[in-house]
C-alpha cells in the first residue's frame, strides 16, 4: 500500500465560532492576514518537503473562498512540490475540473508538472463539492456531465501526438488542441476520481479504469464502495486502484495521539450555511425528496456529530501509539477488502509545525516500515511507462 501525506492548508486564525455565520464563501477576506498567510503557506510546503524526505507520497487539493483550505489552485502547489521534492508521487486530488473553464489548460498544466517532476504526477479530476459551484458559478445541475466530458478531453489531449485535433462537444469547443509539452508518463498519468454516495458515477470510474478515492467515511461504507468498484473494474492499460482518506495522528502515548487527533479534527467542526450544502441538482432527486421532508441536509452531519472514539472505531480516524496505528491500518485494510492508497490528513486546524513534523516522523519511522506486507491490489505505474 502507498501512503500519502496531506494537509488541506487551513487558515484557522478566525473570530470566535459563534461570531461567524460561515467559514466558507462569505467570510470577509479582511480577516485574512497576508503576513500570517505567508507564514502558513510556506510552513505547509516545508512540511510537504519533509514528508517527501521521510518517504511519503504527497497529496494536495484545492478549495476556493474557504478558510478550510488556502491552497486555492492545486496545480500551483503541485508545481512547487514537483521542483522541491525528489521522490514521492505527487497527487492532486484534485483538479476541480468540472469548475474549470478550459480542460485543455488542465491537461497542459499537468503535463508540464509531470515533466518537471520526472513522471511523478497522479492526476485527480474531481467534480468539486457544492461550495465550489458558488465560487466558479458552474451550473450545479450538470457538474457530473462536465466532469466526464472534461476527463475525456484531457485524455484525448494527453494521448494525441500526430498534430492538432478539433473538439466541439457539449460544454467546450476548441479549434486547435495540440499540447506542448506532453506528459512525461506514457501513455498518460493515472487519473483519480473521487466519490462518496453516487454509485452510478462510481461504476463509470471503475469501467474506465481510473483510481477511485473516497474520504472520511465509516469503513462499512468504504467497503460497499470498494466492492462496487471491484465488481465493475475494467483495465484500460493504465493502473486503477482504491484510495481512502482518514485523519492520522501517531503519538508516543495514546493520550498524546488523541489530543493531536482532536486538533486535526477541527476540520469536522467547520461551519457554513445550509443553502451552500445542497445546491439544486448536485445530488439526485431521491435525496432531495428526503430534503423536502427535512431528512437530508447535503452533509454527513451524523458523522460530524460523533466523538473521536466513534471516528477511531470506524477508521475515519487512525490515531494512537505506533503499535496501535499499525493494528488500526491492518484492520482497515482487511475490513475494506484491501486497498492501494492510504491518504492521510496529518495536519489541520491549529496542529502546530512541531507536532506535524513529529506526526510525520513517528509514522514514517515507526509505522510505515512494519506495513510493507500490505501489498497494493492494483499495479503501480512503473518506470517502464516513462517516456523513451
Amino acid at each position, binding site marked *: 500500500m502507498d501512503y500519502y501525506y496531506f494537509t488541506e492548508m487551513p487558515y484557522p486564525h478566525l473570530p470566535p465560532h459563534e461570531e461567524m455565520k460561515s467559514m466558507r464563501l462569505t467570510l470577509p477576506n479582511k480577516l485574512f492576514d497576508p503576513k500570517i498567510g505567508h507564514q502558513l503557506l510556506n510552513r505547509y510546503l516545508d512540511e510537504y518537503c519533509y514528508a517527501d524526505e521521510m518517504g511519503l507520497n504527497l497529496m494536495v487539493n484545492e478549495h476556493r473562498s474557504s478558510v478550510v483550505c488556502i491552497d486555492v489552485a492545486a496545480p500551483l502547489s503541485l508545481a512547487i512540490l514537483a521542483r522541491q521534492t525528489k521522490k514521492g508521487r505527487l497527487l492532486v486530488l484534485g483538479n476541480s475540473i468540472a469548475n474549470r473553464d478550459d480542460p485543455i489548460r488542465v491537461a497542459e498544466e499537468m503535463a508540464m508538472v509531470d515533466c518537471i517532476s520526472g513522471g511523478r504526477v497522479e492526476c485527480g479530476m474531481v467534480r468539486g463539492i457544492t461550495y465550489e459551484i458558488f465560487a466558479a*458559478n458552474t*451550473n450545479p*445541475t*450538470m457538474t457530473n456531465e462536465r466532469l466526464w466530458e472534461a476527463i475525456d478531453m484531457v485524455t484525448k489531449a494527453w494521448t494525441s501526438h500526430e498534430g492538432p485535433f478539433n473538439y466541439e462537444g457539449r460544454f467546450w469547443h476548441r479549434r486547435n488542441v495540440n499540447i506542448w509539452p506532453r506528459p512525461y508518463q506514457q501513455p498518460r498519468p493515472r487519473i483519480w476520481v473521487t466519490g462518496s454516495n453516487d454509485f452510478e458515477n462510481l461504476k463509470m470510474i471503475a469501467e474506465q479504469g481510473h483510481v477511485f478515492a473516497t474520504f472520511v467515511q465509516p469503513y462499512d461504507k468504504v467497503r460497499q464502495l470498494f466492492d462496487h468498484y471491484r465488481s465493475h473494474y475494467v483495465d484500460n492499460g493504465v493502473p486503477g486502484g482504491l484510495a481512502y482518506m482518514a485523519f492520522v495522528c501517531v503519538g508516543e502515548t495514546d493520550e498524546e495521539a488523541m489530543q493531536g487527533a482532536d486538533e486535526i479534527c477541527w476540520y469536522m467542526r467547520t461551519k457554513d450555511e445550509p*443553502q451552500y450544502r445542497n*445546491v439544486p*441538482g448536485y445530488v439526485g*432527486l431521491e435525496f432531495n*425528496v428526503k430534503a*423536502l421532508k427535512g431528512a437530508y441536509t447535503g452533509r454527513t452531519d451524523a458523522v460530524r456529530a460523533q466523538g473521536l472514539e466513534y471516528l477511531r472505531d470506524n477508521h475515519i480516524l487512525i490515531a494512537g501509539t505506533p503499535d496501535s496505528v499499525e493494528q488500526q491500518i491492518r484492520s482497515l485494510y482487511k475490513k475494506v477488502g484491501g486497498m492501494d492508497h492510504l491518504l492521510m490528513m496529518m495536519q489541520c486546524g491549529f496542529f502546530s509545525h512541531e507536532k506535524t513534523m513529529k506526526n510525520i516522523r513517528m509514522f514514517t519511522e515507526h509505522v510505515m516500515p512494519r506495513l510493507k506486507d500490505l501489498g497494493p491490489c492494483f499495479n503501480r505505474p512503473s518506470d517502464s511507462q516513462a517516456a523513451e
Partner: protein
Amino acid sequence: MLHPLTLPVTSEIIEIGEVQIEVQRCGQGAPLLLLPGEDGLEMESPFLENLAARFEVITFWPPGFGRSNRPEWVTMDDVPYLFLDVMARLGLHGVPVIGCSLGGWIAVEMATRTDARMSKLVLVDPYGIKIGGPMDRDIADIYAVHPAKLSALKWVDPTKGQRDLVNRPDDELFIIARNIESCARLCWEPYMHNPKLRRRLHRVTVPTLFVWGESDGVVTPDYGRAYAAGVAGAQFALISEAGHLPHVEQPEAFFAAVDPFLA
C-alpha cells in the same frame, strides 16, 4: 398554509419533437394561458379557483417541471419556442396570458418572438431582464441566501406560501424537487435573465399589465417599473401587503387590479 385544491384538473402531454410538455386544464369559460412560477404554488392557491370560475385555465409546464420531460440539450432559449409550438398545436388564438415569476419571464420571451396568438399579457413579478451594471444585484440570489432570509424576501406573511411537505406522497415531492432542480438548470447563468431581452421588449405589442408585490424583495417594484417602462403602453399595479407572489398572498387585491384589465 396552502392545501392541494379539490378543483378538477386534467392533464395531457403535447409532444414537440422529443420534448414532452405537460398541459393542464381546469375551469370553464374562454381559454386563458397560465404560465406558473417556479414554485408552482398557483396550483394550490385560491388564486386558481378564482381564475377557473371565469376561464378555462390552460397551464403549460416548462421542460423539467410538472410532468414535462427535460432532454439534456434544452436551455432557456428553447422554452419560448416550445410553448409557442404548443399554443399552435392546441389552436390557441387571441388568449390572455398570465405569467408569474419564472413564468412571467417565459411569457415575455414568447411575446418578444411573436405575440400574435396572445390578446393580453399579465406579468406578475417576472424575472427576465438585467437593469443595473455588473456589480448590481438586480435579482436577489435565491440560491445564496439563507432559507429564512429567502422566505422574508418572498413573503410579507410566509405562512401564506407554506405547504405541508412532510405528509405529501413521494411522487408529488419528486415533482417539487425536480421543479427546483429544473429552475437551476434553466436559470443559473445568466442568473434569472436573458441579457438581450430588455432590448427586445419593444416587440411586445399586446396590452400588458405588470402586477407587483409592494414588498417583493427578490425583484423589487423599482425593477418592475423599469421592466414596464420597456413595454410600450404597459400598465403597472402595486399590490400592498404582498411579496414576490402577490396573486398567492393577496388573491382578492390581485383580482381587483387584474379583472378590469382582462374584462
